[in-house]
């Protein structure tokens, strides 16, 4: 099976600091790949490179086997790589529907749309509502409710739904459960599994080992700016994973095969 998103020999230096050191990366179709690593291991540089937020000094990124060169997150998004940022990147005062379609609004057809540039609100609301319930996650009473009136888990849900609605190829989730309580995290993890069930592969960045081991199909362990190893969570324990990522234990030589 060909990886849907892969990277070879990525290098990124900030002055004397090497953030990425000949880093490789592979995401297989339909899987949840967790990326773990100690602080400063360079995992956020890796994710930023994949999502177009930074440009690497050298190395290649392939999407569906094609070399790609994202110059901005918008670029990556247009290619089908959606990122849910830790900050969620939503406008709190605007409605759920407005936020889901921010930057890719639908205009009405005909005179009102072409000349008057009028948005097709009914269509946007219908699609937003449908995308939310497609993921089996919500019975929205008021799709025009401002995002700031939602709880943390609900906001995360809307952000993931937005990514899933438009991310045709890959979704990157940056610490989706970091700010949530136990029960809200539970809902978001279920949501992540729902998205995978729709055959959209996910890159999950998380510090939360129980969450990682629960949902991930494979775990990419990042250390000192490169991929140390990829392990199958069924073969290793959480303390093994922590030992690999801190260097307390030698990494297994063989890279675990794709699920």
């Amino acid at each position, binding site marked *: 099976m060909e990886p849907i998103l892969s990277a070879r020999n990525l290098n990124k230096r900030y002055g004397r600091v090497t953030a990425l050191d000949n880093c490789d990366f592979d995401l297989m179709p339909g899987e949840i790949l967790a990326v773990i690593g100690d602080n400063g291991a360079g995992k956020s540089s890796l994710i930023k490179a994949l999502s177009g937020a930074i440009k690497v000094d050298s190395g290649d990124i392939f999407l569906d086997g094609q070399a790609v060169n994202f110059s901005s997150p918008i670029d990556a998004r247009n290619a089908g790589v959606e990122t849910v940022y830790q900050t969620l990147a939503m406008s709190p005062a605007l409605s759920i529907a407005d936020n889901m379609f921010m930057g890719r609004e639908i205009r009405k057809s005909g005179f009102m749309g072409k000349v008057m540039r009028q948005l097709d609100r009914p269509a946007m609301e219908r699609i937003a509502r449908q995308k939310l319930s497609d993921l089996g996650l919500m*019975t929205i009473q*008021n799709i025009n409710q401002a995002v700031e009136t939602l709880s943390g888990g609900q906001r995360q849900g809307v952000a993931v739904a937005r990514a899933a609605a438009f991310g045709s190829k890959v979704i990157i989730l940056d610490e989706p459960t970091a700010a949530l309580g136990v029960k809200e995290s539970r809902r978001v993890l279920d949501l992540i599994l729902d998205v995978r069930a729709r055959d959209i592969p996910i890159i999950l960045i998380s510090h939360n080992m129980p969450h990682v081991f629960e949902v991930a199909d494979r775990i990419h362990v990042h250390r000192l700016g490169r991929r140390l190893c990829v392990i199958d969570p069924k073969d290793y324990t959480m303390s093994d994973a922590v030992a690999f990522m801190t260097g307390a234990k030698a990494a297994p030589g063989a890279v675990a095969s794709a699920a």
Partner: protein
Amino acid sequence: MSNQTEAETDLVARAETIASFEHQHTLLSRIQHALHSNPALVPLIVLVASVLVFGALLGTKFFSSFAMTLILQQVAIVGIVGAAQSLVILTAGIDLSVGAIMVLSSVIMGQFTFRLGLPPAVAVACGLAIGTLIGFINGWLIARIKLPPFIVTLGMWQIALASNFLYSGNETIRAQDIEANAPLLQFFGQSFSFGGAVFTYGVIFFILLVLALAYVLRHTAWGRHVYAVGDDPEAAELSGVNTRRILISVYALSGLICAFAGWVLIGRIGSVSPTSGQSANIESITAVVIGGISLFGGRGSILGMFFGALIVGVFSLGLRLLGADAQWTYLLIGALIIGAVAVDQWIRKVSA
């Protein structure tokens, strides 16, 4: 986050409804939610209440179509400038140069006609173009060079005002001359009436402008992006909004609207005077704030500003008709400003 635990219990109870919304059914929170989704409601209530109070005190002297439309005429210029100010404040900026752009544009329209001998239509077009250009420079400095809007427009205020005095030589073009040679400059001063109501073209322009901007802000992608940029610029950028283009277009449009206000100003006072309209800055900000538009950006509606401007007009005319000292107007407006900002802060807490 005070109701976090409540939200969590809810989530357990309704496993399938993660984003159904818990409602607290107290009257106060309902009011808060209503105001949250309709920010123009507060100024509308204040406007209706003040009209009723002054109407009760003054009777038909105030409650006549003549007095009502007189208020519109008196607030038209502040309202037009306030519309420009609203756009800028929605992006969490501020435009201190609105008054200066207005006066400079009116002086250019006048002087280009009388000193350079250009046809009035061309002179008006030049005035509008220069207003837009100044706004564009503001926007460019703010969006590209990342200078704070307060500083940029404070500087531009001085620059535009000084250019206005330098270029005009502090000279007023008299109303009779304009009337005889270039009536187009006074276009917005013309009026028609039915019943006792008198509408100047300036008033009509003001109302149409507010309606047009209300439509654009609510029903176009550009309008939604203006709100998103004011709400959280980083989030807007990551969601795919071209924040720099939005900011530059907002300031340029603000400049254009202020130039139109300059044209309306000629119609209102008849002459072209480089010393007119000095209070437009502060009055436009007052209308915006009383209108419930948040100075922190992203919240409020242009209709609120419309009501805010009318509130100021109702207070000034009502108190004048009552024979009160004009200072009472300022005192009450001052109280309204503080009250409006307090309400804004309260509405923001709706999410908590």
